[in-house]
C-alpha cells in the first residue's frame, strides 16, 4: 500500500487551519508493537501523529456518532441562537463510509456535520490471524513492506505475507474505496475479490441443523458478555440497548448460556441491512467469538431477498425500513 | 456467622399511604422469626435493603425508631422496579429485608446538644426516626432543645401527618412545618425551607444541625446556617448513591475511598469537604 501518511497530515492540518473541521478522527501508532489505534486530532501539531496503514482496524464511524451525539446533548441546555455546530472530520475507508451512509440514512446527523477524508484501503491485518500464524508468540517489533510483515517475536524473527493474515472480511470486500467523501487521499485501491464472499455461508447452510446449533452454542459459550462487540459497532448506537432495559428486563445479565445466546442472536439480527462487514466487532472480541459467520449470513439474505447491501449508496434506503409488494413470501405457512 | 447477603424474612403488616399523589407509602414490617428482630438492631440514620424476590433489592432508610418495638418501618417512593413492585403489595405479603446497613446519625455526638432538624419532602424519613428516638421518654433528657423545620411542596405532600400533629402538641419540641404553597385548607406556614430557617433562626450555641432533603434545598439552606454561626463539623447530612450489596464490596457507591453504604451514608459537612465531589 502506498504511504499516504504525509499527505493525510497535510490535509488534516489544512482542514484544521481553515476551520473546516473541529476535530479529526483518525489513527495513530499504538503503544503495542504493530498496532494502530483511533485518535482525535484537534490541533495542527497533533496532526503529525496521524497514520493510515494496514494495521488500522477499527471502524471510526462509531466515534463520529459518539462525538456528534455528545455534542448535541451538551447543546441541549444552550439557547437555540447560541448553539454551536461541530464538524467532525473522519479518516474513512470504504467500510467506514458505508457506516456513515447508514447513519445519514437513519438521520443520526446531517451530511454537513461530517467531513469525510477518504482513504483507499487494501485490507487490514487480522490480529488474531497474525497471532495464529506466529503460534501466539508475542510480537516485539515489526514492519510492513511490499506485502510482507517482518516481525520480531519472542520466539525469533518471522516473515509473514500480508495476504495470509489479512482479515477475512477485507479479502472479499466490495467497497474498499470510499463511497462518499469530501476529499480523497491517494489513488483508488485495486478491487478486492468478492466473488466467493458467501462460500463459507453456503457451506455452513448445508450442515445439518444439529451441527449448526452445536456450532452456535460452542461459539456463544466463549462470550463473556463484556459488550465489546456492541460498543465497537458503528450501527449499534441505541441510547439504551435492549440488554440494559430493566422494565421489562429482556435479557438476564448473568452468564446463563441461553441469555448469551439470546443476546447475541438479537444483536446479530439487529444488523439486518446494517452490517457493513467492517470486522470491528470481531477484532475487538477478547474471546474470539466467530460472529462473522452470522453477520455474513444476514448480509447474504439481504442481497438475496431484497437486493440490498448495507450502506452501499445514499439512495438505497435500509431494507427493513421499506417494503415491496413483490417481496417473496415462500416462508408463509399454509396448512 | 450471618451471611450478609441473605435477607431476614418479614411480613408486611401495615401499609400507610402518606401523600395525596399516592406514590409514597409507609410499610410496616414484622419479622417472621422473632429472634431476627434482635439481630436487626439499628440506630436512626441507618438503612436496610428491601428485598422483593423476583424483582431485586432497593436500599431504603429506616423510618421507624428503635424505640418502637415489634416492627420496622420504611417509607418508600415509587420509582424503579423494586419500589413499584413494593407499592403493589398487599398487607400480609412476605418479603425480605437486609441490614441494618451504614453508619447512623451520630447519637453520641448529638447528646447534650441542642438539635436542629431540617428536612425537605420525602427525605424526612430517617429524620423522623431520629426525632422519635430522641423524644422517647428514656432518651429525651439526653438531648437539649429540639427544633424541627420540615417542608414539602404542598400540604398533600407532607408525610407522617398524624405524627406531626402529635409532635406539635408536645412542649419539649419546637416544630415548624412549612409548605412551598398552601391550599384552601392549609392554616400553617408557607415558604421555602431556607426562608423558614432564617425566621426560626436557631442559635448555634452548643447546637448541631441534621439536614436531609433534595440537593437544591440543601444548597440554599446551608448558607443560612453558616450565617447563624454553625460550623461545618456541626452540620450533618446523609448521602445517596446507587447501591447493590450494601456492604462495601460491589464497588459502585464510593465517593473517593469511602463507601456510602459502609462508611456513610451520614457525613458531616467537614467530612464531605475532604471527600471528592462525585455524588
Amino acid at each position: 500500500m502506498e504511504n499516504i501518511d504525509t499527505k493525510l497530515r497535510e490535509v488534516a492540518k489544512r482542514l484544521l487551519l481553515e476551520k473546516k473541521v473541529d476535530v479529526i478522527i483518525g489513527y495513530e501508532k499504538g503503544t503495542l508493537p504493530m498496532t494502530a489505534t483511533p485518535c482525535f486530532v484537534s490541533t495542527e501539531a497533533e496532526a503529525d501523529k496521524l497514520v493510515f496503514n494496514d494495521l488500522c482496524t477499527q471502524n471510526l464511524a462509531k466515534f463520529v456518532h459518539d462525538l456528534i451525539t455528545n455534542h448535541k446533548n451538551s447543546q441541549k441546555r444552550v439557547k437555540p441562537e447560541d448553539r454551536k455546530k461541530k464538524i467532525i472530520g473522519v479518516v474513512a475507508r470504504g467500510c467506514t463510509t458505508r457506516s456513515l451512509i447508514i447513519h445519514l440514512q437513519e438521520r443520526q446527523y446531517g451530511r454537513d456535520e461530517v467531513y469525510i477524508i477518504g482513504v483507499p484501503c487494501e485490507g487490514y491485518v487480522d490480529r488474531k490471524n497474525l497471532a495464529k500464524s506466529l503460534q501466539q508468540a508475542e510480537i516485539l517489533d515489526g514492519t510492513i513492506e511490499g506485502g510482507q510483515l517482518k516481525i520480531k517475536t519472542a520466539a525469533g524473527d518471522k516473515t509473514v505475507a500480508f495476504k495470509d493474515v489479512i482479515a477475512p472480511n477485507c479479502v472479499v470486500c466490495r467497497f474498499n474505496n470510499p463511497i462518499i467523501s469530501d476529499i480523497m487521499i491517494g489513488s483508488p485501491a485495486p478491487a478486492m475479490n468478492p466473488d466467493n464472499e458467501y462460500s463459507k455461508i453456503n457451506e455452513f447452510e448445508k450442515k445439518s441443523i444439529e451441527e449448526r446449533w452445536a456450532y452456535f452454542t460452542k461459539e456463544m459459550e466463549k462470550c463473556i458478555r463484556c459488550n465489546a462487540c456492541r460498543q465497537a459497532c458503528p450501527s449499534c448506537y441505541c441510547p439504551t440497548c435492549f440488554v440494559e432495559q430493566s422494565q421489562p428486563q429482556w435479557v438476564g445479565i448473568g452468564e446463563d448460556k441461553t441469555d448469551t445466546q439470546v443476546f447475541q442472536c438479537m444483536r446479530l439480527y439487529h444488523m439486518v441491512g446494517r452490517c457493513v462487514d467492517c470486522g470491528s466487532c470481531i477484532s475487538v472480541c477478547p474471546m474470539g467469538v466467530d460472529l462473522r459467520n452470522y453477520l455474513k449470513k444476514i448480509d447474504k439474505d439481504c442481497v438475496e431477498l431484497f437486493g440490498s447491501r448495507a450502506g452501499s449508496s445514499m439512495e438505497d434506503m435500509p431494507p427493513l425500513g421499506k417494503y415491496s409488494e413483490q417481496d417473496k413470501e415462500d416462508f408463509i405457512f399454509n396448512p | 456467622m450471618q451471611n450478609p447477603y441473605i435477607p431476614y424474612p418479614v411480613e408486611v403488616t401495615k401499609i400507610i399511604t402518606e401523600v395525596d399523589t399516592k406514590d409514597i407509602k409507609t410499610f410496616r414490617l414484622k419479622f417472621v422469626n422473632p429472634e431476627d428482630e434482635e439481630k436487626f438492631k439499628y440506630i436512626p440514620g441507618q438503612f436496610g435493603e428491601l428485598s422483593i424476590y423476583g424483582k431485586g433489592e432497593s436500599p431504603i432508610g429506616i423510618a421507624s425508631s428503635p424505640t418502637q418495638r415489634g416492627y420496622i418501618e420504611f417509607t418508600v417512593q415509587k420509582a424503579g422496579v423494586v419500589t413499584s413492585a413494593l407499592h403493589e403489595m398487599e398487607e400480609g405479603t412476605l418479603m425480605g429485608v437486609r441490614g441494618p446497613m451504614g453508619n447512623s446519625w451520630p447519637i453520641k455526638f448529638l447528646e447534650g446538644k441542642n438539635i436542629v432538624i431540617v428536612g425537605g419532602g420525602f427525605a424526612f424519613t430517617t429524620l423522623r426516626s431520629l426525632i422519635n428516638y430522641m423524644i422517647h421518654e428514656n432518651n429525651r433528657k439526653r438531648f437539649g432543645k429540639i427544633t424541627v423545620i420540615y417542608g414539602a411542596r404542598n400540604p398533600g405532600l407532607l408525610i407522617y401527618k398524624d405524627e406531626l400533629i402529635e409532635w406539635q402538641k408536645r412542649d419539649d419540641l419546637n416544630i415548624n412545618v412549612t409548605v412551598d404553597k398552601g391550599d384552601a385548607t392549609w392554616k400553617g406556614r408557607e415558604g421555602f425551607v431556607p426562608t423558614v430557617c432564617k425566621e426560626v433562626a436557631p442559635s448555634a450555641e452548643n447546637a448541631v444541625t441534621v439536614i436531609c432533603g433534595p440537593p437544591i434545598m440543601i444548597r440554599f439552606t446551608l448558607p443560612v446556617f453558616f450565617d447563624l454561626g454553625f460550623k461545618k463539623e456541626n452540620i450533618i447530612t446523609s448521602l445517596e448513591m446507587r447501591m447493590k450489596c450494601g456492604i462495601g464490596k460491589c464497588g459502585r457507591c464510593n465517593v473517593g475511598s469511602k463507601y456510602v453504604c459502609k462508611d456513610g451514608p451520614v457525613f458531616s459537612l467537614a467530612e464531605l469537604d475532604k471527600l471528592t465531589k462525585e455524588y
Partner: protein
Amino acid sequence: MEKRLIKKDALVGIAKKMAEELTVWAPVKKEDNVLFTPLTKDAEPFFAYLNSKNAPKQVFFPHTETLMKYTRTPKGMVFSAEENKAGKTVLFGVRPCDAHSFVLLDMLFDQEKYKDQYYITKRNNTTVITLACAEPPYATCFCTSVDGEPVSADGADIVLTDIGSEYLAEFITPKGEKLAKYFGETKADAVAETKKKEIAEKAKKAIKSKIPAHEVKPILDNNFEHPFWATIHGKCLACGTCTYMCPTCHCFDISDEAKASDGVRIRSWDSCMFPLFTKETSGHNPRISQKERWRQRVMHKFKYYVDNFNAIACVGCGRCVMSCPVNIDIRKIIEDISKL
C-alpha cells in the same frame, strides 16, 4: 518447608492424577485461547503457556453466582439460602501475578465486619499451585512495579519453579503440604535452591516494562479535578473487556431472575466502564461520562485501594493492555500521571 524436585514432563501427569480425586482448574488450550478450566477426562492441561486469557479469579469469584433461591407460596415468596458448597479444589499452574491477585481480593471479601461467605468458602477449599515465571511471559508484564515478582510465593500454597532440568516444588503452607503426596519423593537439595534464587533474580531483571505505580499515589490524592482526566477516555468504547480480564477487578451486580414459581438471586460481574454502573433510579448519574469512569478505574486501583487496604489493586499481568480493543494503555496513563 518441604521441597521436592519433579521431572519436567511429570507436571501434566500430576495434574491429571489430582483431577481424579479433586476438582482441578488448570490452563487448557481452547482453540486460540488458553483458559483456566476445570480438568475433565478429555481436557489436556497446557503448562507451556504464557498466561491464560482469562484471569483465574473466576474460581473464587465466578462471572455468575447464585446467592439464594426462592419459591412462591400463597403468601408471597419465601427464600432458601443457597448452600455454600465448594468441594476440595486445586488451582494448578497460576502465574505469580494472578496468585498475588488473590491476596488483594482477600482484603476486600474477607473483612472483619462483612465476610463474603461465597468467596471465602471457595478460597478456603482451594489450594493454589503457582507456576513461577522463570522467564517473563510478555514484554507487557510489569509485576515488579506493583509489588510482585516473576518468581514469588505470594498467595500460593505450592510454588513450582522451572530450574532448567526439573521443577522445584516448594510447599509454602500446610494446605500445600497436604498435596505433597502427588509430587513424588525426590527431595530438593541446596543446589536446586541456589539455582532457583538465580533464576528468580534473572527473571526479575528481565521485566523491562516499568510503571511508577507507587509514585502516583500522592499525585492522585490531590488531582481529582485535573484536566488530565479528560484526555484518556476519548477512544474508550465503554466495553468491559479490561475489567472482565483483570484479575483484581471485583465489582458486581446483584439481580433476581424468576420464572413461574421459582427464582434465584444472582450476582454477576459488573464493570465501572458501563454507563449504567452508577446510574440511579432518579436518572442522576454521579459518573456521567467515560471521563469519570476512567478516573474511577485508575483511582480505585492506585489510590482508593491503597487508602483502604494499603495495597495497589493491580498485579501487572498486562491483560488489560493486551486486550483493550482501542489500545488504552494503563502503563502510559500511570506514566503520564506521574509527570503531572
